């Protein structure tokens, strides 16, 4: 079973965003970076599949040179190798990103049985790169998968839409996008981290395309709350809260 996981380096913002002076980007001077939870689940799923069935797990990302940090930390939980399609640091639009990923996947000798993606990227959330890759490679795609099992070359997938669980079956090779909750991603072990330093990362230069979905500027969405009214400290404030619950109609 040869598995490929596509992931994206994103800033990890806490409770507010600061923008750069030109409002085109998030000011990341004081931020750490990571990947989307969905993509952490995708890597964990890939590691588990290779543990069960043998084979290989490859990571693929398009991003700045610094994205090596995210590749290393995911290599530490069990992937075999990684490919970094280096940009100058700017965001690529979904069509440009998908085309670059497709070029890189086609250039591989391995014919991956399974391509795993996050359901959507944490920052730009375009909901489409995986679908574009699937079409270009003529592979079926199931999205938003919350639980999956692979047996005899068929992936049995379940996704949740509202309160309904939808069941899908798809023959490999296929593309599957997963959601947070698929599994509990493991933490890298110390030996895992040490091995990850020696695992190969191929650096490649992707071909840029003219963006069709062109980011012009960003703005921080306004919060609609004026902030909390403090009812008091500790158990002494409980009667005040009971009163609030009466006022808003929760208690009779």
């Amino acid at each position: 079973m040869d598995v490929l996981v596509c992931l994206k380096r994103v800033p990890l913002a806490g409770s507010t965003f600061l923008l750069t002076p030109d409002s085109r980007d998030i000011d990341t001077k004081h931020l750490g970076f990571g990947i989307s939870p969905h993509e952490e689940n995708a890597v964990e799923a890939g590691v588990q599949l290779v543990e069960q069935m043998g084979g290989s797990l490859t990571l693929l990302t398009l991003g700045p040179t610094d994205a090596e940090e995210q590749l290393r930390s995911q290599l530490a939980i069990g992937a075999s190798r990684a490919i970094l399609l280096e940009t100058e640091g700017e965001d690529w639009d979904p069509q440009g990103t998908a085309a670059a990923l497709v070029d890189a996947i086609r250039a591989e000798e391995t014919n991956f049985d399974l391509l795993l993606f996050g359901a959507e990227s944490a920052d730009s959330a375009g909901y489409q790169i995986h679908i574009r890759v699937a079409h270009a490679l003529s592979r079926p795609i199931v999205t938003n998968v919350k639980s999956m099992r692979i047996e005899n070359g068929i992936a049995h997938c379940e996704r949740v839409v509202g309160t309904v669980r939808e069941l899908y079956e798809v023959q490999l090779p296929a593309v599957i996008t997963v959601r947070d909750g698929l599994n509990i991603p493991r933490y890298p072990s110390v030996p895992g981290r040490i091995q990850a330093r020696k695992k190969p990362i191929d650096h490649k230069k992707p071909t840029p395309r003219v963006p069709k979905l062109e980011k012009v500027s960003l703005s921080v969405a306004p919060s609609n709350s004026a902030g909390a009214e403090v009812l008091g400290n500790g158990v002494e404030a409980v009667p005040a809260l009971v009163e609030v619950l009466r006022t808003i109609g929760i208690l009779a």
Partner: protein
Amino acid sequence: MILVLVDHDLGELDPLSLRALTCARTLSDAVHAVVIGGAGAGLAGVVGEYGANVLHVATHPELTDYTPAASGRALAQLVDRLNPSAVLAAGSPRGNEQLAHLATILDLPMAAECSAITLSTSPGAPHSVTRARWAANLMEDAHVHSDLLIASVLAFSFEAQPVVGAAEAKVETFEPLLEPADLMVRVMGRGGESSKGGVTLADAKVIVSGGRGVGGPAGFAQLEELAELLEGTVGCSRVVTSAGWRPHAEQVGQTGTKVAPDLYIAAGISGAMQHIAGCKNSKTIVVINTDPEAPIMAYADYAIIGDLHQVIPALTAAIKATKI
């Protein structure tokens, strides 16, 4: 003309599609709706009421349930024939998915989760959209360079508004040409309710939610007791699900469930924006936190500064006392 994909599950309307229809009416008086699969034909009345003049129904012997790639193919063929200026759908997992198939087949850009759309007024000039990033904590103004705009509508940015005195939409049926590859992925069955019975997170009127501050799985017993007393249910933060203290079905936030209860009690939750993204539509948010500077204070209505392990049992006891 604006074409709106109206989504349905075996004939049952996705209400978010009505918001997409309302958005379409702000762009043009000529709005057509399209449903994929004959089971959607029964929606002519309601889509008419929300402003669609025509309902196109894609019928095909194989289109008996949700088949996203086939939806994309059918939409592409309809677009070819009708030549609309935009194709819209709800910003839902299904809406985004079917539009992404359409955009891929036509090799055009797609703008997901738009809160505002301005169509280009001169040929060759781009369309302008405002779209959500980071679970709508950041908004992006973007240009879409293509004649046809393909965009999904951010769930809560438009209220569905009926047109007074509107007529039923005229039904026009068409049979798309589908290839075997379009039919490879489809819903093969349903697993029923995703919750184990009782109140589901998405519909609960009261949610008592716990974060890292709860300290471990055992600590959730007191949250459960309070939730039950208020006829609500328990929620939690991602730290809690990652640690395996609670099942993921209870996670509120960007990658969990988005909730909108009358009352959301956040106990031991700091208020990372990815958590807030899931609970900010609650009517009233009450915080119980030891830290008066916790970011969640900025989003809440009321707060008690204190240890949840003391405050929650005391609150439960006080509420029980009112019920005697």
